[in-house]
């Protein structure tokens, strides 16, 4: 069925025979601010390269496409041995026990957001807008919606519903599959 697409054409010689777009399938199961970035960066980049992309949000990952929870995504200070000190010159990480103190999660999140802003990183809402603009398909796992107490109306526009068979169908035809 496939003809003349065994070899990726040199970018110097592009014709109508350019191969089928590659496909990226992502499962996103984490709902912290730092874990929201890798899938959205990969997905938007792939889509900008012409790839066909689908993201399946499940469990805590649903928070990334939750209208109310998405703006409140946080960095976990508890059980995070990589938690850096507020001032980068301090040469040690924050002891994990300290991360359990009240207010630490808010402080850690504020700190991370300030670093992201200084580094000029796109925000999560910006990346979600780009994802929609580039036609990335976003699916909420309808099985875990109920588990996580999320109703259909809680989700941002453009998110559809699908389950494991739909993911596997897409992933089976994909070039790259990542579980994040």
């Amino acid at each position, binding site marked *: 069925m496939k003809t003349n697409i065994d070899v990726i*054409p040199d970018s110097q010689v592009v014709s109508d025979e*350019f191969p089928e777009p590659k496909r990226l399938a992502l499962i996103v199961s984490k709902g912290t601010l730092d874990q929201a970035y890798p899938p959205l960066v990969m997905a938007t980049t792939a889509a900008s390269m012409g790839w066909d992309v689908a993201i399946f949000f499940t469990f805590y990952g649903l928070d990334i496409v939750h209208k109310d929870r998405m703006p409140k995504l946080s960095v976990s200070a508890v059980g995070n041995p990589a938690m850096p000190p507020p001032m980068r010159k301090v040469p040690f990480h924050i002891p994990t026990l300290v991360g359990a103190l009240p207010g630490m999660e808010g402080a850690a999140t504020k700190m991370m957001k300030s670093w992201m802003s200084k580094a*000029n990183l*796109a925000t999560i809402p910006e990346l979600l807008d*780009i994802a929609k603009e580039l036609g990335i398909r976003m699916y909420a796992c309808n099985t875990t919606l109920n588990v996580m107490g999320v109703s259909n109306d809680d989700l941002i526009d453009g998110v559809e519903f699908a389950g494991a068979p739909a993911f596997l169908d897409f992933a089976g035809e994909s070039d790259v599959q990542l579980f994040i």
Partner: protein
Amino acid sequence: MGSAEVVSQVDARGLVCPMPTIRLGQAIRKVEIGQLVEVWTDDPGSKENMTAWCKNTGHELVEHSGDDTAFVYVVKRSR
């Protein structure tokens, strides 16, 4: 390059991955096939990123220049 000329400039300086290539993608869709888009960036990983982006999209990286801190890429819309 003959008659091809830069018709669109993307100033991605200060932006980090993935934004330079996202902005390039947005710009290239607005120009005609054969026309050139110029991207300015200070992303140190941009050479690898731009090369990979062009390889995947089928557009042609016709020129790149820069020192260690600032880079200019010229990409021709090829399809």
